[in-house]
């Protein structure tokens, strides 16, 4: 790799030069090299996106830029930093004192865990003050600068500075952390998954803010993420990391439209998004290599459809694809032909339209469902009213047999609570849930005794798959006993052999072969995707009629998501179940809903604001909130309108203990008029499409709304 000066730019002025940078950890199993001889230039004032799956070494590369790799890792190679008007410095050779000044004054870093990046017992202000004083900066001017940055990030400096970290929402904390990283006016900002824990809208808004901040503070940004669409929105150049090396590097536009490395192409195809036809989305087969045991030759060859003997023998050098575009592949010229990004024309897979809508009795019927939580009362006073959070407020929804409904919304909007109330896990404070016409929370007197379902039958019919498979499986039980438990409970006529053959069959069915081997493992011996499969089988064993899948794929790596969703869909067909999906990601929602012919429901602050077939929700959303969600969903195409103003008034969600009057979205809605603040719109048909319903005045052509005056920001304060 050293001979050809890979990933070097001749014409541009680099701010950081990396030369053969490696990060090594000594482990019992041998040396583990988590960054392998990366050579890379970072241009002044660019946004460089570094994309890789988890375990590809991207975070280590980020830490290496600050010489901040945690013990016992060691960084080798050469990193040269070229400050604006000062002599260049070699980062890895700095003395301890110099290094302490270099970090944060020249290169600052924003971590993934903004939630935990602040000392919980000190105010945000203290964090700023101690940073300034540690770098012998003038506190007063420094704090003025901090207040300015916070304002630029749409935060109220006085309130934020006097808060403790736990008093801020996740998005606010993340922005406060960005402000903290900029307070010493660094030239480079390294961001390691800065938005991974945030909602789509917040994510997209912060990306937008970064763009502004970058120009204003004259920054170079290194943006590290697993999310290719996200980086497409902000980066000038993208480096794709695979197995601790750079696989491909080039301008964002070229990486997205004409990627040359097979891995990039497969990764693009495996990423759910809103535009590409769902038939073209396919998982990347195989798994990323272990750092101790990287394959000989090209590290991607075991998963690569183009691999031949050359790939097995020789590690490819960076080949120049175009002027500023390189790919570490022997066959980069053949890759576009072998792995087309567009789906093959001929097999237009016919989508089985599901019969939902008016067809038949609903399986589950929610009517005016309300779940209110009382919270501890605020403040130090001894007396006062408790706060009430309406997690779910008046939701009506019918789910039919073989139906799929995906609930989408920001975190804290009540979508999970709604799901749990629907399957009988969270007693509602108002409204009813009816399973085949019978109220599952008690009053079943209106049903004939002969037709009545027992509580056990209802429990069995309504099942759940949790978000985190790791914590929903008992770590002390083998897969066998985890899966046997529901069978023993519900099918006591089965003997041990029957149970075993049933479990083995299902394990094989979901691709966990050899099943004999898997059945005796413990959950921690499985990968995340396999754990989720086991959790899924456990729910399926009961032959349920409805499964609540609460973000079942958000804990999985990007390249595994499509595979998991396909499996979910396939199991649904096999077992004739209905799904109630909960997701915060519109792309995933679209994938599932479109493939199964289901519906997408958009939830905002406990209300169902729009529901309908995916075609309508994605391509012709009627509710302004759905539009905002759509805007916030990163897309895989290079957009010229990247810096467009967001279609929302404010970034932050209103306090759920004190929801806005009228239409709850009016405080953030760019289309809001006076009437929206006064009364909430009823749910009306949104388009000609069956089942498309919207709770917004804008779908009612003859409503007074259209004569009303728009709300301006002064009205909202």
């Amino acid at each position, binding site marked *: 790799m050293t001979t050809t000066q890979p990933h070097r730019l001749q014409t541009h002025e680099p701010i950081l030069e990396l030369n053969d940078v490696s990060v090594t950890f000594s482990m019992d199993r041998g040396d583990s090299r988590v960054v392998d001889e990366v050579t890379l230039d970072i241009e002044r004032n660019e946004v460089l996106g570094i994309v890789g799956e988890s375990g590809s070494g991207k975070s280590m590369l980020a830490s290496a830029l600050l010489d*901040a790799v945690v013990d016992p890792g060691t960084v080798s190679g050469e990193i040269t930093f070229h400050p604006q008007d000062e002599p260049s410095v070699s980062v890895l050779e700095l003395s301890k004192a110099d290094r302490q000044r270099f970090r944060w004054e020249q290169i600052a870093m924003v971590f993934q865990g903004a939630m935990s990046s602040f000392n919980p*017992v000190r105010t945000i202000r203290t964090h700023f003050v101690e940073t300034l004083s540690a770098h012998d900066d003038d506190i007063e001017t420094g704090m003025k600068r901090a207040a300015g940055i916070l304002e630029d990030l749409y935060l109220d400096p006085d309130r934020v500075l006097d808060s403790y970290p736990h008093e801020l929402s996740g998005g606010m904390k993340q922005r406060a952390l960005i402000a903290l990283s900029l307070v010493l006016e660094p030239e480079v900002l390294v961001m390691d998954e800065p938005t991974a824990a945030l909602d789509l809208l917040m994510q997209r808004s912060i990306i937008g803010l970064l763009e502004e901040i970058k120009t204003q503070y004259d920054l170079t940004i290194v943006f590290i993420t697993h999310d290719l669409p996200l980086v497409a929105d902000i980066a000038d150049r993208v480096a794709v990391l695979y197995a601790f090396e750079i696989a491909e590097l080039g301008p964002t536009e070229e990486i997205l439209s004409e990627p040359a490395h097979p891995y990039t192409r497969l990764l693009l195809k495996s990423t759910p998004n809103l535009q590409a036809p769902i038939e073209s989305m396919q998982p990347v087969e195989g798994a990323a290599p272990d750092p101790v045991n990287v394959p000989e030759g090209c590290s991607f060859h075991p998963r690569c459809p183009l691999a031949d003997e050359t790939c097995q023998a020789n590690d490819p050098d960076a080949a120049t694809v175009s002027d500023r575009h390189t790919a570490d592949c022997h066959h980069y010229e053949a890759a576009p032909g072998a792995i087309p990004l567009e789906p093959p024309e001929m097999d237009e897979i016919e989508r089985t339209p599901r019969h939902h809508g008016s067809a038949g009795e609903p399986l589950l019927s929610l009517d005016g469902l309300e779940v209110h939580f009382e919270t501890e009362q605020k403040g130090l006073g001894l007396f006062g009213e408790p706060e009430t959070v309406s997690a779910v407020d008046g939701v009506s929804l019918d789910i039919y047999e073989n139906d799929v409904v995906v609930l989408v919304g920001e975190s804290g909007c009540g979508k999970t609570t709604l799901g749990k109330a629907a399957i009988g896990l969270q007693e509602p404070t108002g409204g009813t849930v009816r399973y085949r016409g019978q109220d599952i929370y008690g009053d079943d007197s209106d049903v004939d005794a002969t037709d009545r379902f027992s509580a056990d039958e209802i429990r069995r019919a309504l099942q759940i798959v949790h978000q985190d498979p790791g914590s929903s499986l008992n770590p002390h039980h083998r897969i066998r006993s985890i899966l046997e438990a529901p069978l023993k409970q519900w099918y006591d006529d089965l003997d041990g052999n029957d149970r075993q053959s049933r479990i083995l069959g299902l394990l094989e069915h979901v691709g966990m072969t050899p099943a004999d081997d898997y059945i005796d493992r413990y959950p921690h011996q499985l990968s995340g995707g396999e754990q989720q499969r086991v959790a899924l089988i456990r729910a399926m064993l009961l032959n349920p009629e409805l499964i609540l899948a609460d973000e079942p794929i958000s804990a999985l790596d990007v390249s595994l998501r499509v595979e998991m969703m396909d499996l979910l869909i396939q199991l649904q067909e096999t077992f004739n179940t209905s799904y109630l999906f909960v997701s915060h990601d519109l792309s995933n929602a679209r994938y599932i809903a479109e493939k199964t012919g289901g519906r997408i429901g958009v939830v905002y602050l406990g209300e169902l604001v729009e529901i309908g077939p995916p075609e309508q929700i994605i391509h012709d959303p009627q509710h302004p909130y759905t539009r905002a969600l759509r805007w916030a969903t990163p897309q895989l195409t290079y957009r010229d309108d990247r810096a467009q103003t967001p279609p929302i008034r404010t970034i932050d969600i209103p306090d759920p203990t004190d929801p806005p009057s009228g239409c709850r979205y009016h405080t953030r809605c760019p289309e809001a008029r006076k009437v929206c603040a006064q009364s909430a719109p009823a749910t009306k048909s949104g388009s000609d499409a069956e089942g498309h319903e919207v709770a917004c005045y804008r779908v009612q052509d003859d409503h007074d709304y259209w004569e009303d005056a728009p709300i301006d920001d002064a009205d909202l304060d």
Partner: protein
Amino acid sequence: MVFNNWRIRRVGQAVFTVWAVLTLSFALVRLMPGNPMGAMLVQLEQSGMNPARARELVEARLSVRPDQPIPIAYMNYLTSTLQGDLGQSIASGEPVANEIAQALPWTLFVMSWSLCITFVLGVVIGALMAYWEGGRLDVGLTSWAILMGSIPFYVLAFLLLIFLSYRFGWFPTGGKYVAGTEPGFNLPFISGVMYHAILPVLSMLVASGVASLGMRGNSIRVLGSDYLRVARLRGLSDLTISSQYVARNAMLPMYTTLLINIGEMFGGSVVLEQVFQYKGLGYYLYRAVNIRDYPRMMGGFMVITIAVVIALFIADMTYSMIDPRAGGASNESY
């Protein structure tokens, strides 16, 4: 909805616990097998007192009148207890409240020293172990802490007594102060008091073993946290990081443990003060049990329970001052 406020709920819980203790001891006196009243009557009658006089004495000392209906007796008992009248000691005939008031400060004196030293030792040793995690110091101190944690304090007390007092004669074998000194603020008396307290305090220090292990775990957790990593990158001084970041956060869980320890120490004082012939509340209680001095026993138990309840109540009320995340002051996203 007043009861939704956690502070009021805690006050309510504390009051309830105290009430329950009072009621239980009221019931115990009447229900215990070989019931105290009967036992006391027999005791007095055997010593040659005539039954009528014995009954009068019992009534006076136990504040129990057997002929009273239970509800009235109960009310009288509650009112007199709340007024500080805990009955009279059988052995001495003194009001129990007075006797406790005299004994309690000595126990508190030894206890507060043990608690303070235990806490400081635990925190310092724990922090050192965490800082050199896996090193020789860590291994050595961990073994020491486990050893300390597994020795019952009274065994250590006996060892100290045997070696330091009897064999080498460095410390007194019992007592609270040097005989012949004038109680008050004068040097001979105070230094004598300190001198006599050293061994009891030392033997209670076994608790620091467990405390230091707890602190070690907490510190290691904090050392691995994201905010510590960010603090290092921000270039904060080692002093700020170790005091304001590591110690501050690692000590939070210790605070509650500290106050819960008060209860343990009171319980321990019963044996400890017997070993050292240290005439505090524990010594007094032990004697009461031996001679079946029921009013004393009841009074002593009551004081201990109430002290523990108050300590835990203080812990609850003050925790939000040292940890902003706790308590009612939370206002997520403003």
